[in-house]
């Protein structure tokens, strides 16, 4: 039976059902089911978030100044972006303006996070969908060296260097203990790289593994540790003491800032010479594999971020908005406070809004959440042993957020589509140059509108965004130095630190361009305590289930019409799902700010 969804996708459940659970190389827990037709082409896709923790319930009644640490623990990968969103929400509610130094330090931390997250995603969570490490054993290191020298100025490019890596890999494989590479799909014809490119990528897998440990040290300087650096409401905790008494024991001094600068420069070089060129080169071998676009070809959204001037949203260096129906000529402004814009639905989620309200959408400030775990009549298996979910009923621990009723894709590709459409010069230059290089290597002539809304485009946009962040954080660093030089060493505004200075009631919103897309936290404060707290996170937008009208979300849309080489080996499913960098740990917390007690929860 074929169904046409209101957002233009055709679903057919007639063919064989394939279940991937767990989907690995993601943060959190996820399940995916698809139906393939007689030609092994995906004709229906079902995305299920398989975990719920209930952090927003836990936050109720606590000190708003503490919230950042709770929500930071939503996820260990995008660590810090929830904390940043949280302090922004609290500061918005209490109308606290943070000092410029604090703004710049937070900006550097946010971009370091973005850069780190993107690099780790590509090399350690995503590359194995494109790269075959076993095939790298067949490479001629000289050919790898030539390839490296052709695509960038990276200093580690000699044949001997690649031979060493190959020998290490050989030992590893010969030991018979493949470790994390075990049971990979290494003889699947979906892998298209020649051995020399596989060796290049495996080498950079290892280089990235080393360097990702270095770049996070910027968080260690400013926030004391990584993962989970410390934040605070009103500024940053790392006071500045450049030359006074006891500067050497101060959080920030000359030695600390020198260290930060060095790491930022190293990151810039790595994304310029390794990450971006690798993505373009690998993509060129997959020039015929332009699947996976899904919703990105039509609907994308982001709140916008990276103000060039503190407090001036119009100076966002990645400006936000919503694009609908693929019309890049019209960008709808987005307002997270408007009750009619961002809403969440639970028709197909394991929550209930109460009797007769299964199909309504609620704005985060007014939401209701009660877990309501039940399988639909067509599900297979039992309540504690699911063989197949019934997507006509409730089937996920994720809610379905919509913008004015529209399902949208979020993430680096959404931001780059928006920035391109806004005409941001830097982004336009990057995209055009990258596509030029891709087209040259691949012998194709793809336009941005053809190349971007694909799995490859999603992966490319992430790489370009990482490098843009590297560029911007160096600017932020220079601005920080200039500000200190001009005599301003302030890092915190503590005028409203004491809750007795707060209004009796307040509400606020914080948004951040998180690695996986637009992130928003909504808070209501009453009598100095959290009355309600709600997070609407990127993977909720992308991985959420269907809405009452039957619109499908970004994950499900992206898998449709993709042919699989071998249905039992989900390389293509993983490739496209991973291109979103799913974070189910984040997406499954979304709980009610409504104030109701949870009906089905046992309190210990």
């Amino acid at each position: 039976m074929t169904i046409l969804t209101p957002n233009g996708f055709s679903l057919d459940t007639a063919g064989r059902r394939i279940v991937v659970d767990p989907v690995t190389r993601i943060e959190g827990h996820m399940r995916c089911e698809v139906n393939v037709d007689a030609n092994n082409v995906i004709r229906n896709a079902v995305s299920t978030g398989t975990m719920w923790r209930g952090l927003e319930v836990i936050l109720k009644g606590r000190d708003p100044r503490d919230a950042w640490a709770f929500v930071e623990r939503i996820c260990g990968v995008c660590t810090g972006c929830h904390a940043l969103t949280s302090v922004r929400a609290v500061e918005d509610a209490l109308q606290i303006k943070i000092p410029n130094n604090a703004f710049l330090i937070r900006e550097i931390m946010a971009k370091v996070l973005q850069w780190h997250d993107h690099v780790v995603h590509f090399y350690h969570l995503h590359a194995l969908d494109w790269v075959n490490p076993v095939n790298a054993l067949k490479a001629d290191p000289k050919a790898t060296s030539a390839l490296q020298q052709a695509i960038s100025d990276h200093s580690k490019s000699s044949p001997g260097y690649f031979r060493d890596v190959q020998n290490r890999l050989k030992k590893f494989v010969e030991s018979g203990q493949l470790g994390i590479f075990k049971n990979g799909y290494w003889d699947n014809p979906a892998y298209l790289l020649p051995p020399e490119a596989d060796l290049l990528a495996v080498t950079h897998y290892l280089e990235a593994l080393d360097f990702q440990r270095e770049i996070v040290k910027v968080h260690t300087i400013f926030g004391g540790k990584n993962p989970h650096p410390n934040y605070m409401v009103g500024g940053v905790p790392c006071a500045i003491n450049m030359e006074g008494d006891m500067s050497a024991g101060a959080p920030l001094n000359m030695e600390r800032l020198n260290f930060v600068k060095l790491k930022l420069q190293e990151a810039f070089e790595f994304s310029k010479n390794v990450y971006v060129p690798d993505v373009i080169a690998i993509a060129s071998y997959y020039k015929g594999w332009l699947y996976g676009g899904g919703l990105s070809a039509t609907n994308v959204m982001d709140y916008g971020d990276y103000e060039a001037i503190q407090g001036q949203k119009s100076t966002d260096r990645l400006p936000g908005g919503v694009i609908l129906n693929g019309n890049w000529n019209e960008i709808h402004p987005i307002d997270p406070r408007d009750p009619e814009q961002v809403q969440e639905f639970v028709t197909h989620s394991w929550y209930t809004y109460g009797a007769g309200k299964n199909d309504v959408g609620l704005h985060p400030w007014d939401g209701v959440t009660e877990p309501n775990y039940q399988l639909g009549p067509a599900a297979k298996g039992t309540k504690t042993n699911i063989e197949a979910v019934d997507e006509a009923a409730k089937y996920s621990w994720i809610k379905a957020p919509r913008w004015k009723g529209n399902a949208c894709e979020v993430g680096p590709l959404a931001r780059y589509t928006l920035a391109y459409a806004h005409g941001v010069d830097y982004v336009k230059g990057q995209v055009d140059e990258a596509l030029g290089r891709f087209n040259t290597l691949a012998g194709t002539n793809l336009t941005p509108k053809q190349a971007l809304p694909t799995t490859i485009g999603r992966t490319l946009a992430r790489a370009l965004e990482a490098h843009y962040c590297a560029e911007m954080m160096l600017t932020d660093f220079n601005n920080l130095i200039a500000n200190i030089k001009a005599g301003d060493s302030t890092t915190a505004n503590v005028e409203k630190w004491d809750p007795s200075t707060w209004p009796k009631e307040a509400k606020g919103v914080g948004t951040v361009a998180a690695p996986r897309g637009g992130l928003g936290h909504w808070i209501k404060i009453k009598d100095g305590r959290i009355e309600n707290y709600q997070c609407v996170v990127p993977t909720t937008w992308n991985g959420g289930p269907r809405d009452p009208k039957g619109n499908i979300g970004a994950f499900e849309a992206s898998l449709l019409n993709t042919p699989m080489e071998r249905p039992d080996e989900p390389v293509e499913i993983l490739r496209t799902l991973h291109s979103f960098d799913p974070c189910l740990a984040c997406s499954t917390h979304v709980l009610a700010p409504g104030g109701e007690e949870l009906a089905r929860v046992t309190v210990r």
Partner: protein
Amino acid sequence: MLSMISLDYDDTLMASAGHQAEAILDEVMTKYKGNYILAVEGNPPLNEDGMYCIIGGKPFVDQLKKVAKDAKAIISWGSCASYGCVQAARPNPTRATPVHEVIFDKPIIKVPGCPPIAEVMTGVITYMLTFDRIPELDRQGRPKMFYSQRIHDKCYRRPHFDAGQYVEKFDDEGARKGYCLYKMGCKGPTTYNACSTVRWNDGVSFPIQAGHGCIGCSEDGFWDKGSWYARLADINGKGFGVEANADQIGLAAAGVVGGAVALHAAVSALKRAQHKGDAK
């Protein structure tokens, strides 16, 4: 690290997915029966028949019990596995439960922290592989090698505590000089961990050095022991001396006081008064 161990199943890093991934677990369990180390991150939620966390269509707690059955030992990596952590904070809506409350018949090594220090994690596992034994544990099940002292005991700002020199508010003169963060709610005096000695990320820094008090993330139930910014009360009057380890002193109370200052701090202030001119 990977030259010493074979990391066969790690759902964040492994190449395979779905049943090929689950097949690896089965293989490890058969091939290395009774001889593999199970390191658990996170914890199982027990409400809703365990279906708040689903792996392969079944409750995570089932997978945990199944794999634990033939393990040689279990490492509870992090505060989630060790104590329950954030999802177990009041009211613990999913009944998130630490590993030792669902597995009773195996040695369990707790390596708490949110997260633990990476060097501590590798230190514990490489110790086990190198010396072929479980490290000496304290009565809470933590390796003494990393968890026998409080952050406060070897904090580089400790002299300022003793001298009664405190940060009174963020970004004040004391904050810029690296004074003690006790009055800003630092939980260093009641937190057993190696942050002030090993430090973080190759020893680059640790929370106190970066200007924020310790939030006590390696302690049981730290989420429910008052705000990060609420001052610790030393209600036992035992002081925060370095002479006792975790077993002798037990958990110092992390209650919250309004204006009261701990006894030891008061003594420090008295000493300061005697040496007029030393401090501002």
